[in-house]
C-alpha cells in the first residue's frame, strides 16, 4: 500500500487549464483514495463510505464545503512551517480541483483513467498483536447529551516488565468513540474507582497515572516506534483507556479491544517526553476570567544536552484556541524553528505529529510553548453559558494546556543529565505549588478549614463534606481505611502531606 501512495507523490499532478473538464476517475479519485477512503469505508470510523464514483457523487457538495474550509481531512498542525509524516492536509490545488469538479456537474469521465482502488489491511494493521485485551463489559453510550469522558480499566496481568512498540485500538462502536488515551496505573487506584457508579469504568481523572503507552485518534494509523525505541510497561500495570465519546443520536454499546505490540528488550536510549509547561499546565497560571477572549500562557525549558526529537503533540480542552512550540538554538546556531503550530486548536483532533525526519536540537536550545484561550461567549465551544472563570483542572470543563515533545538523547551517555533536568522541572512545579500553599497560609489555616468543612461537627470529614472538586482526589490519597471519610489520623496525613509540599520535599 505504501508503494501505491508513493506513486501518487511521484506522478505529476494533472495540469488543468481553465475550461478543461475535471473528471472523477482522472482527477478526483486520486485525492479521495489517498486522503479520505482509509476512514470513509465500511467498518471504519467515518460516517459514510467514499470508495467509488456513486458514493462520492452522493456527497459531492458536502465534500466541497468541508474540504474548502479544511474541516476535512482533519489535520490541525501547520505543515507548511514544520514537515510532518502522513500529512492528511489537502493542497490548495486539490481543494480547487474538487470545487471545479462539483461546479462542472460532477462528470464521471472514463473509468480507464481511474487509479487502482486502494487495498487496505483487514483486521490488525500491524499483524497479530502480542497481547490482546478487551473490556470485560460493554459501556452504553446514550443517544443524546453532552460528550462523555470515561475511563476503562483493563488488567494486563504481566508477570514481568515489557516494552511497548505500538498499540492498536479497535472500538466496537467506531462512530461514537472519538479518541482514547492509553494510560498506565501501577497503584491499583483506577481499579478501586472502576464500576462504582454501577456502570463499567469511571469518570473523572483522579486515579494515579504511572505512565502512558500512546493515544488513538481516528485517521491516524498505528505505527511502531522507530529503531529500538519502546515505551516502558512495568509488570503489574493496568491499562486505563480514557475514552472520549460523541453521542450519535442512537444508543451504542462500546466494548473496546486493544492490541499491544511488545518487545522484551529495553531501548538503548529511553524515550523521554518533555512537557512544556509541565503537568499539563498545572502551575502555568491558567486562571481565565469570564469573558476574556485572548488569554495567553507561556513557558520554556532549556535542553541541557543534544536531543533527537521524534514527535510533538498538544493537550488542552474546549477554551484553547491556538498552540505554538518554538525551538530557539543558542546564539549563532541558526534561526528559531517552529516545532508545532496549531492555529485552530480542536479538542476533537488531538493528534500526535511525527516529524518527517527526526530533528536534532542542540544543547542550550530553548523550547518555548505559547498557548491561547478564548473564554468569551463568542467561543461556541465554551462549555459555560454564560462564561465563567475557568482554572486548571482535570475535568473537560476546566482547562489544561501543554505541548509534549518526545525524543531521545543524541548521545547515550547523556541520559542522566536529561533525566535530572526533567526531574528539576517537576521539582520546580511542586515548589510553585508549595509557594501557593504558603502564600495562602493553607497549613496554618488547616484546623479552621477542617472545622468549617465538618458541618456535623463530629471530627470526621465525610465524603459529602469534602469540597466537590477535590473529593475524589483527597479520598484516593488519604482515605486509608476506605470508609469514604477522613478521620483524625487521615486528616493528620493531609497535614503532613501539605507540609512536605510546602517545604519542597514532595516530588
Amino acid at each position: 500500500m505504501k508503494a501505491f501512495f508513493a506513486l501518487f507523490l511521484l506522478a505529476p499532478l494533472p495540469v488543468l487549464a481553465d475550461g478543461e473538464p475535471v473528471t472523477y476517475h482522472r482527477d478526483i479519485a486520486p485525492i479521495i483514495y489517498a486522503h479520505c477512503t482509509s476512514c470513509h469505508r465500511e467498518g471504519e470510523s467515518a460516517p459514510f463510505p467514499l470508495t467509488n464514483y456513486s458514493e462520492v457523487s452522493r456527497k459531492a457538495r458536502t465534500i466541497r464545503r468541508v474540504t474548502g474550509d479544511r474541516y476535512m481531512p482533519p489535520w490541525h498542525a501547520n505543515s507548511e512551517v514544520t514537515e510532518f509524516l502522513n500529512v492528511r492536509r489537502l493542497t490548495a490545488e486539490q481543494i480547487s480541483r474538487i470545487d471545479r469538479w462539483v461546479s462542472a456537474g460532477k462528470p464521471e469521465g472514463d473509468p480507464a483513467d481511474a487509479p487502482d482502488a486502494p487495498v487496505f489491511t483487514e483486521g490488525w494493521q500491524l499483524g497479530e498483536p502480542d497481547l490482546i485485551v478487551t473490556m470485560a463489559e460493554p459501556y452504553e453510550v446514550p443517544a443524546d447529551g453532552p460528550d462523555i469522558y470515561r475511563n476503562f480499566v483493563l488488567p494486563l496481568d504481566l508477570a514481568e516488565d515489557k516494552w511497548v512498540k505500538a498499540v492498536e485500538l479497535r472500538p466496537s462502536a467506531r462512530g461514537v468513540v472519538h479518541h482514547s488515551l492509553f494510560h498506565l496505573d501501577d497503584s491499583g487506584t483506577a481499579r478501586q474507582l472502576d464500576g462504582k457508579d454501577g456502570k463499567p469504568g469511571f469518570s473523572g481523572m483522579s486515579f494515579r497515572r504511572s505512565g502512558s503507552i500512546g493515544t488513538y485518534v481516528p485517521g491516524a494509523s498505528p505505527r511502531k516506534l522507530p529503531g529500538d525505541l519502546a515505551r516502558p510497561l512495568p509488570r503489574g500495570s493496568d491499562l486505563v483507556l480514557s475514552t472520549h465519546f460523541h453521542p450519535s443520536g442512537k444508543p451504542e454499546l462500546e466494548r473496546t479491544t486493544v492490541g499491544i505490540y511488545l518487545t522484551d528488550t529495553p531501548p538503548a536510549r529511553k524515550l523521554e517526553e518533555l512537557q512544556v509547561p509541565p503537568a499539563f499546565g498545572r502551575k502555568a497560571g491558567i486562571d481565565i476570567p469570564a469573558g476574556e477572549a485572548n488569554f495567553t500562557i507561556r513557558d520554556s525549558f532549556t535542553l541541557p544536552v543534544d536531543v533527537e526529537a521524534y514527535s510533538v503533540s498538544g493537550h488542552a480542552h474546549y477554551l484553547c484556541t491556538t498552540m505554538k512550540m518554538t525551538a530557539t538554538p543558542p546564539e549563532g546556531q541558526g534561526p528559531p524553528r517552529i516545532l508545532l503550530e496549531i492555529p485552530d486548536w480542536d479538542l476533537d483532533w488531538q493528534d500526535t505529529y511525527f516529524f518527517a525526519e527526526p530533528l536534532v536540537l542542540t544543547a542550550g536550545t530553548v523550547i518555548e510553548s505559547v498557548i491561547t484561550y478564548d473564554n468569551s461567549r463568542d467561543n461556541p465551544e465554551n462549555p459555560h453559558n454564560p462564561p465563567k472563570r475557568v482554572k486548571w483542572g482535570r475535568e473537560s470543563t476546566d482547562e489544561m494546556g501543554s505541548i509534549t515533545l518526545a525524543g531521545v538523547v543524541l548521545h547515550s551517555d547523556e541520559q542522566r543529565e536529561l533525566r535530572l533536568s526533567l526531574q528539576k522541572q517537576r521539582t520546580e512545579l511542586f515548589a510553585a505549588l508549595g509557594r501557593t500553599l504558603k502564600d495562602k497560609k493553607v497549613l496554618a489555616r488547616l484546623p479552621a478549614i477542617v472545622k468549617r468543612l465538618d458541618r456535623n461537627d463530629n471530627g470526621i470529614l465525610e465524603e459529602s463534606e469534602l469540597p466537590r472538586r477535590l473529593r475524589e482526589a483527597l479520598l484516593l490519597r488519604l482515605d486509608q481505611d476506605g470508609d469514604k471519610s477522613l478521620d483524625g489520623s487521615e486528616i493528620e496525613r493531609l497535614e503532613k502531606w501539605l507540609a512536605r509540599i510546602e517545604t519542597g520535599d514532595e516530588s
Partner: protein
Amino acid sequence: MTSRFFALLLAFPLLCPSLAQGAEPLAKVMVFVAVDCPIANRYAPELNRLREDYVGKKIEFLLVYPEPSLTENEVNQHLADHALTLPFMIDRRHRLVKQAGVTTTPEVAVFGASDEILYRGKIDNLFSDYGERRRRATETYLRDALDAILRGDKPAISTTDPIGCLIEELP
C-alpha cells in the same frame, strides 16, 4: 412560486395521512434529514421530543429524505435504529426541497396555516459549524418559532443558516 405553495398545501395532507384527520394544524414542520448525515442523526432524540411536545398542539411533523436513490427499506432501518416515530416521505424528485427552499440536512421549514413559510433553518444552535458543537443548545430556533405560532405571533427569527450535509442537485 405561489402556485407551488398551493400545490404543497394540497399535497401535504395526502403525503401525511395523520394530517388529514382532525382539525387543520396551525403549522406544519418539514424536517429534512438523511440516513447517513451525522449532524442530522445527532438530532434524532430532539426530533422525538419535539413531536411529543408539540403534536398535541396542532403542530404536525414530517420527516423528508431528499435522496433519489433511497429505498423504503433503508428509511425503515434508519427510523428503527434511531427510534424515530415521525411520519416520513422520500422526496425523490425534490419537490418538497424546492417548495421549502432548503439546502441542507438537517434543515427545517415551518409552514403556517395559509402555507406561508414562517421559519426555515436550524433546529437549534447545538452545532455552530462543522465539528463545533456546544454542550447543549443555547438557542432553540424551531421551538421558539413554534411557541410564537401557538401564541398567534410571527416567529421573531424567520431564517437561520443551516449546518450539516448539503443536499445534492438532481442529476
